[in-house]
């Protein structure tokens, strides 16, 4: 069999556009996930036993089923209960919810990592729950969970590949398409692997930089 890299280089601009879609959905997914996850974690702290149980169940279901199946349910199953989404909408919603459940767990562990005594002292001094969370718990918690957050963000970048299966024009979809058209399966798959590897390395590097910056700033001595 022959090996012809030109196949990739010819259609570089398409690939670049696809990379844009990948990055876009990744960042959007992370953003939705962070907001949703934080909200879910907050709900788990207060708001009564029924809400807490419901949130727990939602988180466990989303974490316990494959992302692909969740996408199928949203994209193909959605119309059944009135939710008609185009691929990208379904992809963003799916990624956001999936990310949200995992972020929620990280935030929950973060909340529990702050010693309860510090919260008690703040409560005795008369500080309200919101103030305590904002001024005492969050600053300490963020330092502790940063590695886990970075890790999840990197995992999510890899999950974007699954969006290709519901025909979202991101990297995997477009490159596989090129491979199918030109029959250059090996070249395209290798290129795909290389690009993701690069993406993950850059993201991991950024994560390490962030961890160093935050560690130095917030916890002296």
């Amino acid at each position, binding site marked *: 069999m022959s090996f012809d890299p030109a196949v990739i280089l010819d259609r570089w601009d398409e690939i670049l556009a696809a990379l844009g879609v990948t990055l876009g959905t990744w960042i959007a997914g992370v953003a939705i996930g962070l907001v949703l996850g934080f909200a879910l974690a907050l709900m788990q702290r207060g708001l009564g036993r029924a809400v807490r149980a419901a949130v727990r169940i939602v988180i466990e279901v989303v974490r316990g089923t494959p992302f692909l*199946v969740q996408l199928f349910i949203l994209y193909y199953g959605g119309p059944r209960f009135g939710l008609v989404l185009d691929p990208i909408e379904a992809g963003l919603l799916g990624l956001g919810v999936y990310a949200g459940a995992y972020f929620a767990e990280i935030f929950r562990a973060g909340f529990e990592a702050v010693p309860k005594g510090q919260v008690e002292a703040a409560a005795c001094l008369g500080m309200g729950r919101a103030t305590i969370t904002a001024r005492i718990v969050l600053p300490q918690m963020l330092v502790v969970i940063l590695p886990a957050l970075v890790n999840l963000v990197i995992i999510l970048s890899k999950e974007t590949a699954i969006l290709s299966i519901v025909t979202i024009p991101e990297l995997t979809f477009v490159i596989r398409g090129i491979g199918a058209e030109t029959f250059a399966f090996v070249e395209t798959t290798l290129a795909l692997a290389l690009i993701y590897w690069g993406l993950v390395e850059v993201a991991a590097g950024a994560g390490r930089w962030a961890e160093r910056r935050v560690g130095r700033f917030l916890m002296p001595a």
Partner: protein
Amino acid sequence: MPLLVQLLLVYYLLPFVGIDVPPLVAAIMALALCAAAYFAEILRGGFLGVPNGQLEAARLLGFRPAQVLWRIRVPLALRLTMPALVNECTMILKASSLISVVGVSELTRVSQNIVATTYRPLEIYVAGGVLYLVLNLALSGLGLWLSRRLGGGR
């Protein structure tokens, strides 16, 4: 890199270098590679987490290095990492849904086929999801039972 891409890589690369295997085998190889990487990380952390004091005590009592490794380090590392190992297993279970992409007839692929003929995507995919969930719960339960049987570790 994404598991999907790893899967495709193994699937396309093997025939290219002359190794012809059915899709299922290629898929299993890709999953195994991915799992191995994660398990290595987890176990490495586990080995590091075994308190040095216990290893020193063993050596002072006269255990040979190999005995220290197998009778003390490994069991303790396994106990320490049991939750992470079980967690990884559930992740592999979920990741298995991706091998449908290379044509393996597993739960997700079969669900897709059924949907194609019955036009009831919501019910079928939800059912599939429930099955995955049940499997994962069973896995987690197994992990809990194993932890308790192995005596809790500290």
